[in-house]
């Protein structure tokens, strides 16, 4: 068989062309969960901690008074700390808003975990497998948002009332917000979002252009934390 060099190269490139075409056509498969925090609604009650309370009570998050050892999943932080590299308007300088794990699209924590205890689910949630966590705290060092807490001691004595339906953690394990995967998997919204009476925490599918969160984000600009790092958080702040 006689085949010219040009023809050979043309046919050899065919599979790659097909692959590229497939890649270009493929749409996002399934949801990618995200949260939009509407500060105007959240600011209606500055001292409110309902989101934190609902989360921490249900997930058996211990209340440890020592700030160096405290464990937090969702909490309120001053915006000057939330957006350290932004020039905030005066009205936000002393204001605060809820912070949590950002469930980054490009999470640095999962890259450094030596045991695969923290990993990204296909729906974008950065999940923790506490069974596998060896407490090395690499993920805590990697997370640019300080979203992770370490159990320096047995957390049980610091849990006022244990919710039997949810497991506790042990000494030597890192924990953080999981976007309530146990609720998402049965079709419910995260607790913080449901607990907020002002509907300041809008949860939904970022891949669905008609979802509540996308509608909100297309109407008003949503700022993400520390965009310069390229982590692409799934939590947006509407300030």
């Amino acid at each position: 068989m006689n085949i010219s060099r040009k023809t050979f190269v043309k046919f050899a490139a065919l599979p790659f062309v097909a692959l590229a075409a497939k890649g270009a056509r493929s749409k996002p498969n399934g949801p990618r969960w995200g949260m939009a925090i509407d500060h105007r609604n959240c600011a209606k009650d500055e001292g409110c901690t309902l989101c934190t309370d609902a989360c921490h009570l249900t997930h058996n998050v211990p209340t440890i008074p020592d700030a160096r050892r405290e464990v937090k999943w969702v909490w309120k932080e001053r915006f000057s700390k939330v957006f350290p590299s932004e020039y905030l308007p005066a009205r936000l300088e002393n204001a605060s808003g809820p912070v949590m794990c950002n469930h980054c699209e490009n999470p640095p924590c999962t890259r450094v975990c030596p045991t695969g205890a923290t990993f990204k689910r296909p729906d974008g949630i950065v999940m923790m497998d506490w069974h596998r966590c060896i407490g090395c705290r690499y993920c805590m060092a990697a997370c640019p948002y300080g979203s992770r807490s370490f159990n320096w001691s047995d957390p049980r004595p610091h849990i006022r009332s244990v919710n039997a339906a949810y497991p506790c953690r042990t000494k030597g394990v890192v924990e953080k917000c999981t976007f309530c995967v146990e609720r998402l998997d049965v079709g419910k919204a995260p607790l913080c979002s449901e607990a907020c009476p002002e509907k300041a925490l809008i949860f939904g599918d970022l891949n669905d252009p008609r979802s509540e969160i996308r509608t909100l984000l297309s109407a008003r600009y949503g700022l993400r934390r520390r965009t310069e790092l390229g982590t692409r958080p799934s939590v947006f702040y509407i300030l």
Partner: protein
Amino acid sequence: MRDQPIILAGLAVFLVIASFPFWYNAATLRAAARPALQLPPGKQCVAPVKYMKAYHMRMLDSWRDQVVRTGVRRYTSPGGKTYDISLTGTCLSQCHQDRAKFCDRCHSYVGVRAAYCWDCHNSPGNAVRTAR
């Protein structure tokens, strides 16, 4: 060869002592006490009892990975019934309410520590701290 009787006598004494538990039990016709497990009345386990006895730990491992790592939260038993995959919510809440009378009895009988399950997982309704 002068010490042969002494050596043989010593060996005999050793064998008698070493085999004491066997011939003592045979002589008194008493079987060792087996752990009495508290079983839920008239309930079907999520898998055949024989399988559960031998492989419950593997099933729990696989349940754990399914829920935590793949988000699969329903289990279909060989009998076609479906269950929520949950140690506290299904195993304990629906059948083995008192793990001290089920899990712990067998585990202490055979001298196997039940992994770390109870360091984190709770017995149904226990609003108190559970000791390890």
